[in-house]
């Protein structure tokens, strides 16, 4: 037997440190962008167009990561872009998780007709190619932050529903669930107190993964110009613009791309790390 308390003081893995650190940094950038951004992200100055980052010849003081073709500061735009990315990640990720995981839990635990209905919907949903589905939805809902969030929730709830249903199904077959029933627990109570804690590690892992996906989806929609109006900076929009002038000004493309990549990677690594920590059996 090992002592449960010693496990709580176990050092957090490098993976959790790095991914958590990067996301904290981004969260700060998102919250404090107006105070820490060196420039106005929308201010155009054609005489400052395509300035390189600070270590190259011909850079301009105060424009650390260079400027785009309209003379807007890349660093400031990335910082402001973090706001949108974080909002989409949090709101869309959480809503998708709540809806998908609840439906999956109900389907896997109650089975019978709730399961038949939910599983049928999941099957139909999964038949649509997600990117086309998203574009179609945006066309119907119109562009804008709310539309993007709604589109992500509508498309991605099945990811949670499918996985959580399977987990709830296998947990429900365990003897401890029968014991809880014999002990007089109502079915709904059994689902919340017995099944939910055992699928929680998976829910957390899926949630952080979904946050990463939400960031990508938002970037893709911005890239094809279907996202928020063009006057608020988004990483996807920056990547789209940077792509055009990549031979003259690589930094306009590369910096937002790296930021996007690190963010998505961090979300998925955070999920895996947390899953290991939350899982009482692996712990």
């Amino acid at each position, binding site marked *: *037997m090992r002592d449960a308390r010693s496990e709580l003081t176990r050092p957090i893995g490098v993976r959790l440190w790095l991914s958590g650190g990067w996301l904290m940094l981004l969260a700060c950038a998102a919250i404090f962008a107006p105070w820490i951004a060196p420039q106005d992200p929308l201010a155009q100055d054609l005489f400052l167009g395509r300035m390189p980052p600070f270590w190259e010849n011909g850079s301009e003081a105060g424009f650390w990561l260079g400027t785009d073709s309209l003379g807007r500061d890349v660093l400031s735009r990335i910082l402001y872009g973090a706001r949108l990315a974080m909002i989409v990640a949090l709101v869309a990720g959480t809503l998708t998780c709540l809806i998908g995981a609840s439906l999956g839990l109900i389907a896997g635990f109650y*089975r019978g007709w709730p399961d038949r209905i939910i599983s049928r919907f999941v099957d139909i949903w999964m038949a649509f190619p997600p990117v086309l589905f998203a574009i179609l939805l945006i066309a119907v809902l119109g562009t804008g932050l709310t539309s993007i969030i709604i589109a992500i929730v509508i498309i991605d709830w099945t990811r949670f529903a499918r996985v959580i249903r399977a987990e709830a199904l296998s947990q429900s077959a365990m*003897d*401890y669930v029968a*014991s809880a*029933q014999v002990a007089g627990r109502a079915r709904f109570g059994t689902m919340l107190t017995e099944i939910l804690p*055992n699928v929680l590690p998976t829910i957390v892992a899926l949630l952080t993964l979904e946050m990463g996906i939400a960031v990508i989806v938002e970037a893709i929609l911005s890239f094809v110009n279907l996202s928020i109006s063009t006057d608020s900076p988004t990483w996807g929009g920056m990547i789209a613009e940077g792509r055009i002038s990549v031979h003259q000004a690589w930094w306009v493309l590369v910096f937002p791309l790296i930021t996007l990549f690190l963010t998505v990677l961090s979300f998925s690594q955070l999920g895996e790390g947390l899953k290991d920590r939350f899982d*009482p059996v692996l712990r």
Partner: protein
Amino acid sequence: MSGYLNIRNLSVSLRGGGPILRSVTLDVAAGQVHGLVGESGAGKSMIGKAVLGTLPRALQITAGEIWLDGQDLLKLSPGQRRHRIGATTALIPQDPLTALNPSRRIGPQITRRLVDILGWTKAAAEARALELLAEVDIPDPRRVMRTYPHELSGGMRQRILIASAFAAEPKLIIADEPTTALDVTVQKQILRLIAEMQARHGTALLFVTHDLGVVSKVCDSLSVLYAGKIVENARMRRFFMHPIHPYSAALLAATPTYTNPQGSLMPVPESVIETVEQEVTAHDRRWGRR
């Protein structure tokens, strides 16, 4: 009817399929130990589950009565039934690994029934749990209450499940092969512990096993089950001296104890299997395969 649990002509079958239990009738007297013996797959666990109301969804009760303390459980609403079983009956399961919720601490898993069904205060339930853990020889019960199941050995977990089963002073405990999943060295201890606890608390015990040797040690009476059909209900002494059904006799001869102490394990003879199979088929024909 005498006895605490009376099962009458209980039939269970696969939904839209063949029979699993065939008109099972058996009694468990108050404060007594009743053995339920049969080969693996005979339907022993399904009898226990039918009583507890935890049959797999694929199965359904098609006929019969389950009387618990003078009341037919199958006539109650699901809620009433659950409450009644929760207040009077407990289970010692076969596999202590899956019988405890891996993500909850031991303490609340023992006190759950006391608080939920009997309406005890949390403090009283915890005091009771500590008392019971000490009774089943768990060292340092206070610490064990705070651990997670995976931190404990199989034998420890089974002790905890035994403590948990006796905690609410149930009138009936169903022990479904409680030692099968354990190491041989631990099996004896657990068996003795269950027998001691049963005697001390005066609980009726339905003891499910495939081991006739174990039955001879702990039971007052027994039922022999073959392919979902009871072939013999008997008191212990009479059964071992004079088994009526040929399958019982063959089973007894195949067990390396009592009648046959040197005992090499012998298979049940083909002719006997044929006889029982014929009986089972005859039953299905008479009752229209329900």
